[in-house]
């Protein structure tokens, strides 16, 4: 008797709840990115396009959902980013903020989204703090982080004999996190760090810093920077005879758009870590073809674009499973963590309790010009970092959400 009554009550509750949620199938996606500065090629308009493609491919619109994608330019400034995030969450009723490259902005937006109970699917930022000390029940960090970069590139370079390092570090949260995580890996593998110089974000001339790195006599010059800063540093290192003088460059974070901009002549032989490359399998090629056809610059997707797409695909699956009501961010993220992920770009994976998306990392080397068969044919895979080794183990996590 008791049993049938509880079943009855349960089904009534279910019916009521689905009825209530059924009216709320409006979702607003906000792509908050660097739309015009040095990171706009790896995120920017491409991320907006990736978000739109995710909406189209989710199939939810055909099922009666109303999904809008809007975009904003945070100009790599944390104050600008938080202002837009507040405006979006408070006034414009944005449910999910995606991308947000530049770790300083991402950490600031992370706090705002948590306070307003939204959803934050980060793809562009690198700082591993997002899923450690700063972790949040409203945040998923999808594509990569500084721990992965350090463990991928850092470890590979030290193992290949590069045991003394000098860092050129971008002087903000991201550079500091990358230098910190890479230093830990270098020390753990028996190498040592001889020094570092912190340069301002968006530096056009690296010659002074390169000269300091050169006189340090370190075997490896680690570039803990990104985008235009990295390409300028690599190009000028070639000019100043750094590599021909016997020192190696380790570009800790390099995107396909950077390789394209450098050209294979300069970039060949660089080893770096990414989690996505357009030419990995049929599915990534098919997606990339559709993507680049719609890009103004005709570029294939960067791993950041891929992360925006894949994280939204998973987000929409969670929304569909919940039946609606995207406005309770923590609940949606909890559902996303509960469901295993499976998408054409990153394959099967999971989102851990700390918000870290788990998938393999890949160690790539830039091809020689003679090896490249066509436009954007730039990478060869040299090693795969298994998913379970790619990111901070939960046992070492400093995230308060992780129960120990």
């Amino acid at each position, binding site marked *: 008797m008791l049993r049938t009554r509880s079943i009855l009550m349960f089904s009534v509750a279910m019916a009521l709840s689905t009825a209530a949620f059924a009216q709320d199938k409006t979702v607003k996606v906000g792509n908050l990115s660097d739309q*015009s500065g*040095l990171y*706009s*090629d790896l995120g920017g308009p491409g991320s907006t396009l990736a978000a739109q493609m995710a909406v189209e491919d989710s199939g939810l619109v055909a099922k009666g959902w109303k999904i809008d994608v809007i975009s904003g330019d945070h100009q790599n400034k944390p104050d600008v980013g938080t202002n837009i995030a507040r405006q979006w969450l408070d006034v414009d009723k944005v449910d999910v903020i995606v991308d947000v490259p530049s770790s300083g902005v991402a950490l600031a937006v992370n706090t705002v989204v948590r306070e307003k109970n939204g959803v934050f699917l980060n793809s562009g930022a690198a700082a591993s703090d997002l899923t450690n000390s700063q972790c949040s029940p409203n945040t998923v960090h999808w594509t990569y982080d500084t721990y992965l970069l350090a463990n991928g590139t850092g470890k590979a370079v030290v193992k290949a004999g590069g045991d003394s390092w000098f860092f050129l570090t971008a002087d903000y949260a991201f550079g500091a996190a990358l230098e910190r995580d890479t230093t830990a890996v270098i020390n753990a593998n028996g190498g040592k760090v001889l020094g570092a110089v912190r340069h301002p974000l968006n*530096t056009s001339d690296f010659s002074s*810093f390169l*000269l300091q790195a050169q006189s340090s006599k370190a075997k490896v010059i680690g570039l803990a920077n990104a985008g235009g800063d990295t390409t300028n540093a690599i190009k000028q290192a070639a*000019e100043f005879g750094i590599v021909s003088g016997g020192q190696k460059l380790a570009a800790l974070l390099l995107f396909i758009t950077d390789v394209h901009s450098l050209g294979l002549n300069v970039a060949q032989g660089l080893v770096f870590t990414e989690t996505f490359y357009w030419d990995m399998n049929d599915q990534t090629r098919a997606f990339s073809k559709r993507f680049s056809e719609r890009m103004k610059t005709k570029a294939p997707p960067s791993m950041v674009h891929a992360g925006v797409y894949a994280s939204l695909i998973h987000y929409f699956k969670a929304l569909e499973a919940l039946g609606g009501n995207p406005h309770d961010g923590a609940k949606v993220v909890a559902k996303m963590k509960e469901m295993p992920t499976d998408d054409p770009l990153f394959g099967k994976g999971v989102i851990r309790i700390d918000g870290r998306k788990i998938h393999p990392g890949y160690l790539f080397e830039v091809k020689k010009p003679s090896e490249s068969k066509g436009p954007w044919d730039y990478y060869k895979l040299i090693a795969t970092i298994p998913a379970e080794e790619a990111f901070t183990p939960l046992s070492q996590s400093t995230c308060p959400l992780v129960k120990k």
Partner: protein
Amino acid sequence: MLGINTQALFGQLLLGLINGSFYALLSLGLAVIFGMLNIINFAHGALFMMGAFCAYFLLTWFDLNYWWALVLAPLIIGAFGIVIQHTLLRRIAGLDHLYSLLLTFGLALIIQGVFLNYYGSSGLPYAIPTALQGGTNLGFMFLPNYRAWVVVVSLVVCLATWFLIERTRFGSYLRAATENPQLVSAFGINVPLMITLTYGLGVGLAALAGVLAAPINQVRPLMGADFIIVVFAVVVIGGMGSILGSIVTGFALGIIEGLTKYFYPEASNTVVFLLMVLVLLVKPTGLTGKAA
């Protein structure tokens, strides 16, 4: 950190000089345009960027190498500047400086936006010409041949421009025309044509700097935006409109910035502005400027 290594110091001084040659070349163009035409040309950075893109297009579309670009890009972009002057800037001649500042600033944003839209922010590769590849080991540092070339070209062009304006008949007409256009045209000199050509010259200097920068920086839509603010600070410190002042200040600031990169790299982007504030506090007309 404070143990100063003289070798490294020499290296930094030389690098400062190299960067200073870009500042000098760009601020020279600005000073010519401001001193002669009273236009605050905020589009200078965008035109510098167009110079670099022009070199890239000449290479990829017409197979014309760096040496051609060095001659053709300033002419092409200079002609573009003349079109801007003739169609837009001429209309606001005689109005307050603010109008030219706003107009050229808007132009710069439009030009940058168009290039960003089609070429993205990370830019395009442009190789150092084969004749200038490699470098020389000076003992205290490795000096790439290309950088030495940049300093030489920049010095020659700066001095030639100074000579043209301060020491030739054309220059004296020009200076007279900025003092009193009515009187000069009464002598039968075509003042509007001279002004148009002068704007073209200033723009050509920006484009030349762009071609010189193309192999060092990436050819990027925002390369000018990064430079222009610093260059304006150089012009302000040197004294608005002073030709020699902007050349000397350009080189000097390059060196000061280079030293900052060695002693306190975090401040290397701000040191120029700190100096600007100090100079303005002590001598509001700039180091070589005369009181209005």
